[in-house]
């Protein structure tokens, strides 16, 4: 049973990745981007919920017409140095108006959560050994910020945006 942080709560994940079995009672499945591209038509008519998992070089713009079908987008982070996901998330939220669940997954750690949440991520799937209760405190690291951003639910900052 996978636990993750969603909107500042620790919850049990109702989604399954495509390589996991069974699909689960919730029938909510996350497909790799390549598979979604290849099998888009056949999955469209499936009766469960669908998500897509993106790597750092996957072209997010190609999903822009799929949001009526895709309820979740998971973006991968291979380590703390991987920063492309922040821009991918910001673009999904601001340019492509994705309003579904946006999940950061992979080698993410507590100290990135504040930044990730301000880019529009609302779900955080940390490595298995992470202490999620400690991670929850990260959203309160700062009560102020300079930039306008796409703050996800759970981030409360007083802004004096310079832009």
């Amino acid at each position: 049973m996978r636990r993750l942080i969603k909107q500042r709560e620790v919850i049990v994940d109702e989604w399954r990745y495509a390589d996991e079995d069974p699909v689960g009672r919730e029938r909510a499945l996350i497909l790799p981007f390549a598979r979604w591209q290849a099998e888009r038509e056949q999955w469209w008519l499936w009766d469960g919920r669908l998500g897509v998992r993106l790597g750092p070089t996957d072209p997010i713009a190609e999903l822009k017409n799929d949001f009526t079908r895709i309820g979740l987008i998971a973006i991968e982070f291979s380590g703390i140095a991987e920063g492309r996901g922040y821009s991918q998330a910001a673009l999904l939220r601001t340019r492509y108006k994705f309003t579904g669940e946006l999940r950061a997954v992979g080698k993410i750690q507590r100290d990135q959560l504040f930044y990730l949440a301000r880019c529009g991520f609302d779900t955080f799937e940390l490595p298995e050994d992470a202490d999620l209760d400690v991670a929850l405190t990260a959203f309160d690291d700062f009560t102020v910020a300079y930039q306008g951003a796409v703050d996800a639910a759970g981030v409360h900052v007083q802004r004096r945006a310079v832009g």
Partner: protein
Amino acid sequence: MYQYDQIDQALVDQRVAQYRDQTRRFLAGQLSDDDFKSLRLRNGLYIQKHAPMLRISIPYGLLRPAQVRMLARIAREYDKGYGHFSTRQNMQFNWPKLELVPDILALLATVQLHGIQTSGNCIRNVTADHLAGVASDELEDPRPWCEYVRQWATLHPEFSYLPRKFKIAITGSPQDRAASRVHDVGLHLVKNEQGEVGFEVLVGGGLGRAPMIGHVIREFLPKQDLLAYLEAILRVYNLEGRRDNIHKARIKILVKAIGPAKFRELVEEEFAAAKDSAPVFDAAGFERIRAFFAPKNYEALQDQDVVTGKPEEFRRWYQYNTRKHKAAGYRAVFLSLKSPTRPPGDITADELDRVADLAEQYSLSEIRSTHDQNVVFAHVKQSDLFALWQELKLIDLATPNIGTLTDMVCCPGGDFCALANARSIPLAKQINERFDSLDYIYDLGEIQLKMSGCMNGCGHHSVGHIGVLGVDKDGEEWYQITLGGSTGGQDASLGKVIGPSVAHDDVALTIERILEVYVEQRQDEERFLDTVRRIGIAPFKARVYAPSHQAA
């Protein structure tokens, strides 16, 4: 200068608390070395050869006396009694204890200083012309824009985990005193044909192992689009910049790989596409910032002759270490951190305290650091110059050598830095010993000598008129010499290597031979750089590597 309000203060205080907790978790074994590294770097903490090194941000090089006194206190209580001004206007301490850094940062926060984003793969301190606001050739003061960009860049959610570090410099004068053409982004305040002031935008300059001069990608950017345009540049870089090889990750490599024209196209495309979501210019917010940089209340004075009848030594100092000020009756004064007995850029705690006192007495309580590792008092009354000079002499800050050979730029090098191949500080000593005649130095005129202990290039060797780069050959220190580099204005250029590297003990001698050729070949009052450009490096090479000069 800019004063924090409660939002600025809260951010810095909360950053200290966050870092204190990160340090605690690291010491408790809850954070791996690698994970902590990324966190400590973005608070300015490196692990060096002998001890950690802490880099304190000095936004665009501007300090108040209380801040300078705090730097003195930290040097005294947490270091070995001195600090070092870096080539990006920051201050570095070479001996803090890792576990005490949160305490240091807490002290700094009480005077509105911090180490935020002074290292790591994020947007670094925004630097500026050290004569901003007082230079007579200035179109507009760049510092309000620096502060505006600083705030936007601080803890930017999208651009805090870039492929590599990202440096921005802003200038408001035709003469480039901020090395802006060798920054990831250089911004120049310029006027267009309609008489409006905006920015010329350069991208892809940089030093280090692949030095490059930046390319203009926008001739004129309306001021109100500044942050939106920067976001477009950063977003293209964040998504397209290489992350597989640390040496290929700077934006200059991306710009070179796809070409400046293609890069410009991508940025303009992103800029247009982001119109609805990009930062909107906050005119009121900017005015609030700009008010902090309003011209000082200068007394109504006349320019006067303050040198006639004064000692030769003072007249030299006046000529070399002071500059024209746009207010009549004032001069800008350079405090030279390049005396023969001082590692370039170093300053002791006692000297810092004294500098703070003197700034209060003589320079409207303002201190500036320069990118060539000196200090500036920007607002000194001409009638005070003689008194100030005497005071500065007492603390070894009046060496009359600004802009000359011995005003050399030098990184901490192998004495401190874990990255260095070779030492650089002993070279400064060697050069000072060989060139101990001020008359000779003055005859040579303007020369920029820049030395780095490794190809990361913190000493900016690639853009020195004479550049010296430390290289390691089988565990021995050797030095590669370049000629013809420059950061100045439109004619920024990279130096050319003259030949095989020279041994440590031969560096000053080699420079002397180079200068002999210059003296023989120079026409009239031609600068060294211009002679090199006119005759090329061949005559210098011939002299340095002449058979008669090779050891038997």
